């Protein structure tokens, strides 16, 4: 769990009222909260429990509330509401520029159409906005996608896989081997997905090679995913360690005791409240 939204909120509150919010007391309180919530999230490793649920709900609520306010104040208000307001009531110093912002009525109308999804009777209006988005995005992106993701990707393969370089224009064996491998990989994977031909004989061998390439790609992707998750874990543990020593006022140990005690108490209550399993009915006697 990343507590940066909480930190950013605290910083903004500090900027608004440095006397109270920016004081060392509030900053220390922020760190206590961050340590406590990090540990509360990790209690999920034991099992789903009320302490985890509380931390999860607070995090989701704060993150969404923060993002909503920030989007309003940095995107919707300055990019749509204020220019439209200036178009209706032009400021004295820029009357001409204000009139040019009237075209913003179009995206404003389409945005309102999209929000009509929440009104069942007028939900059909959202289709206009979606149709506009799908149409313009396709128009803009299809040619660019063909150029960037098909043509430019095919070009190196079609241009021959023998790479040359250096002063003598000698063959670069490693680079050439790599290109050859990519070429074989592309054809083998495409053959694997070729369903109009029965996979037997040489086609089967080539399709099987395709599976090998796919498995290597999935393995590399999964390995990278594990590495990414490890990095996040390391980041959090590093934060907890910095708060565990005397410089961090032993916050980690103190909050760990509080969180463990809370989870244990709630778990005991859960076990007590759970009715004992009903006794199995005796098997019917054989006649």
């Amino acid at each position, binding site marked *: 769990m990343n507590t940066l939204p909480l930190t950013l909120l605290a910083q903004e509150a500090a900027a608004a009222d440095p006397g109270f919010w920016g004081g060392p007391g509030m900053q220390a309180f922020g760190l206590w909260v961050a340590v406590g919530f990090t540990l509360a999230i990790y209690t999920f490793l034991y099992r789903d429990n009320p302490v985890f649920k509380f931390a999860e709900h607070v995090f989701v609520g704060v993150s969404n509330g923060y993002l909503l306010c920030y989007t309003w104040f940095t995107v919707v208000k300055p990019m749509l509401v204020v220019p439209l307001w200036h178009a209706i009531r032009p400021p004295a110093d820029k009357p001409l520029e204000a009139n040019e912002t009237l075209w913003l009525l179009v995206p404003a109308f389409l945005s309102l159409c999209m929000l009509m999804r929440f009104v069942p009777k007028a939900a059909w209006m959202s289709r206009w906005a979606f149709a506009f988005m799908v149409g313009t995005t396709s128009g803009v992106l299809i040619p660019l996608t063909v150029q*960037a993701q098909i043509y430019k990707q095919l*070009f190196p393969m079609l241009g021959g896989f023998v790479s040359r370089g250096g002063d003598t224009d000698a063959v670069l064996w490693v680079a050439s081997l790599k290109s050859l491998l990519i070429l074989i990989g592309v054809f083998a994977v495409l053959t694997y997905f070729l369903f109009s031909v029965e996979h037997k004989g040489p086609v089967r061998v080539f399709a099987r090679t395709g599976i090998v390439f796919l498995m290597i790609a999935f393995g590399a992707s999964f390995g990278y*995913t594990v590495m990414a998750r490890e*990095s*996040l874990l390391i980041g959090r543990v*590093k934060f907890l*360690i910095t708060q565990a020593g005397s410089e961090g006022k032993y916050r980690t140990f103190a909050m760990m005791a509080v969180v463990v005690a809370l989870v244990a108490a709630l778990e005991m209550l859960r076990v007590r409240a759970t009715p004992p399993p009903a006794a199995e009915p005796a098997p019917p006697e054989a006649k």
Partner: protein
Amino acid sequence: MSPELKKMIPRWTVFGIIALAVTIPLVVGGSTRFPATPIVRGVYEEIEKLPEGSPILISSDFDPGSEAELEPMMNAILAHCWRRKLRVVVMSLCSANSMPLAEELVKKAAAEHKAEYGRDYALMKFLPGGTAPILTLGQSWSAILPKDYYETPVADLPAMKGITKLTDFPYMVCVASVATPDYWILAGNAKYGLKMGMGCTAVMATDYYPYISTKQVSGLIGGLAGAAQYEALVERPGLASSKMPTQSVVHVTLVLLILAGNILHFLTKKKGSAA
């Protein structure tokens, strides 16, 4: 012992082993120097080629969820740019809360490198809309970004001197935890021929390898390992280098756990079939 508890013990053992594998190297400390791969070197070499005083665009497209992975990368790139005395312009296409995070990271790095706002770097506003703002920036910068993050006209910022459109940047780096590199490749590189490099979370790295062999992207810094390699290139061991020993220990632990799991699985299977 209840059967539920019996079931949980192997899980807890794995969690405990991983917790120790993460905590012990972090407590012991130290850092590792990683030799840079040609893929990471691709970004470094392009920045090295830029003449002193050139502008460089950094698209900071990540939010707090990926900070642990991308902050070291961002720090290393900024350090490199300011060491080369480049004018850094930071913007974001990711989400509204990516710019406050970028502001915090850039300001912290700027204080360390004595970079001055307006002269050595400038922060722009978050732009929603994916490829649309890139296409517009390619025609006119001031059409959608007439003012910076602090509402100062960009014309008043020395860091933005000579920038009228996207292609006035000789190079850009997209540091992302979402799909914004796709937008930059499609709209920035394919449409306007903008030279670019990228840094991303490890999860995303494999998706962008094909763009390197076609030279659409000059280089890629992937995850914490990529950041550690970049730190080694700029000779400034930082957050990534200090976290990499832990990452290596966890890797080895995971491999051993996978091997142990497989051996146990086959042994149990053999026992089951024998019975």
